[in-house]
């Protein structure tokens, strides 16, 4: 039985081309890019070449790219770095309730440090309201941080408009584009965005490398203090191989995006429609909003997500769930709760996120094996209508 991976929003494989590009920097070219002797020259050039590739991918200049160790670190640097740099101008930050923990936890921390944060609501389709955004702007607002596309639902936010609003009010705009990057075109030259986060392992580069676009003139206080790396904005000897991997992955994404988008759109639609046809009592989360073409998030009534995942795992099919049981926390996913879903529906959600190697056959196999799994779990559920006396909880 072949393994089937429908969890590309969690992480992606390292492409062979990416691995091949990295290889020399784990083998013969292990020098420190800061060294002025022979050992440093090739690694240094490799880092700068990668910077150019990432810059080309994002439509900016290489000096506007800072390499980091992850999307999470980039979010921390973008948000904390800007907040501390501008704290004399104001202490108010606007974000949404559905950001990734890398953003939310950072904002929570800043609240302890004296900043005030507005967390914008989303509607039942996972979309923010630009009117809300405008109303929440205050004279002391220094930063708006709203993700480009949501990791759980795939909902795409109106970053163009948000950028325009931010610019009008002279507020810095950061966007977490970890999930958008590689899936939809991102062009910082036509967006009013000042800071933009990407992560290697979500676009077929390895784990342990990320980048932050920092528009020229945007001042940041470092999060990691140290040597003169990354123009004094991020200390630490560079993860050369990882950076080269990210550069190559960005180059490939630029090259293949159109083709991949068409393919992913087709198979993801087939998957979603297949499930809609064969499984009753489900909800397509964010289905009414513009979404990434690779992501389908579905709540299955009466049952819990992890148990569905375990059932799929028996068939070697990997997906993920908004169930608390899969996250190490005790709360079901904040994203679906923010969309007004009940706790049960949040616990019962499954995210299928497809990637470049997925096939129609894999999708068809899923559509075959999923309905009986759902049926079996429902037959065990005390919440299921087929139950004698369904348990009803007061809320």
């Amino acid at each position, binding site marked *: 039985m072949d393994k089937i991976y429908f969890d590309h929003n969690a992480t992606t494989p390292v492409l062979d081309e990416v691995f091949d590009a990295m290889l020399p920097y784990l083998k013969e070219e292990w020098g420190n890019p800061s060294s002025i002797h022979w050992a440093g020259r090739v690694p240094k050039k490799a880092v700068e070449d990668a910077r150019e590739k990432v810059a080309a991918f994002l439509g900016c200049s290489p000096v506007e790219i800072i390499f980091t160790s992850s999307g999470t670190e980039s979010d921390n640097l973008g948000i904390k770095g800007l907040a501390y740099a501008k704290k004399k101008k104001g202490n108010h930050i606007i974000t949404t309730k559905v950001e990734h923990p890398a953003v939310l936890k950072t904002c929570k921390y800043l609240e302890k440090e004296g900043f005030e944060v507005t967390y914008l609501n989303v509607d039942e389709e996972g979309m923010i309201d630009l009117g809300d955004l405008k109303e929440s702007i205050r004279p002391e607002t220094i930063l708006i941080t709203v993700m480009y596309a949501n990791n759980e639902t795939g909902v795409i936010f109106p970053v163009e408009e948000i950028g325009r609003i931010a610019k009008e009010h002279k507020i810095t705009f950061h966007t977490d584009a970890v999930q958008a990057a590689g899936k939809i075109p991102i062009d910082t030259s036509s967006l009013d965005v000042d800071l933009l986060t990407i992560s290697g392992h979500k676009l077929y580069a390895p784990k342990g490398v990320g980048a932050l676009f920092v528009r020229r003139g945007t001042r940041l206080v470092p999060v990691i203090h140290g040597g003169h790396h990354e123009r004094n904005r991020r200390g630490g000897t560079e993860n050369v191989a990882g950076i080269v991997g990210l550069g190559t992955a960005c180059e490939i994404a630029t090259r293949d995006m159109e083709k991949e988008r068409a393919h992913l759109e087709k198979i993801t639609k087939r998957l979603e429609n297949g499930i809609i046809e064969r499984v009753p009592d489900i909800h397509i989360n964010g289905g009414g909003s513009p979404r990434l073409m690779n992501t389908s998030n579905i709540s299955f009534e009466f049952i*819990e997500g*992890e*148990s569905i995942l375990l059932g799929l795992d028996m068939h070697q099919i990997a997906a993920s769930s908004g*169930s608390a*049981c899969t996250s190490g926390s005790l709360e079901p996913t904040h994203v679906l709760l923010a969309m007004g879903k009940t*706790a*049960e529906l949040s616990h019962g959600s499954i995210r299928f996120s497809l990637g470049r190697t997925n096939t129609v056959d894999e999708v068809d196999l899923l559509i075959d094996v999923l309905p009986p799994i759902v049926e079996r779990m429902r*037959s065990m559920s005390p919440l299921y209508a087929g139950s004698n006396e369904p348990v009803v909880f007061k809320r």
Partner: protein
Amino acid sequence: MYSDKVMDHFNNPRNVGEIEEADGTGSVGNPDCGDIMKLTLSIEDNKIKDVKFKTFGCGAAIATSSMVTELVMGKNIDEAEDISNDTVAEALDGLPPVKMHCSNLAADALHAAIKDYKEKNN
């Protein structure tokens, strides 16, 4: 993540269902935590003649539910009352740490069902 025993009980859960006109019923958990168990008992001469469960929850929740029914089947009530959530987890060769508190409620459901039985028969 899970022991073989957990996976066995998850894949082949024992005593799924509901006893009609049960002598004791216990429902525990709540949807916020993602685990709800309903356990029904049929009791004769202080002995558990039959036991069934229904569970909304993760793999650990289903496996602990199944395991607790196996542990108490045929036991008398006093013995059943001695069973704790830890007893259940041990019988399953352990649970992942994150699951120890949130999804390990089956013994609570059992105790609730026994309590219900005792109240009805008082």
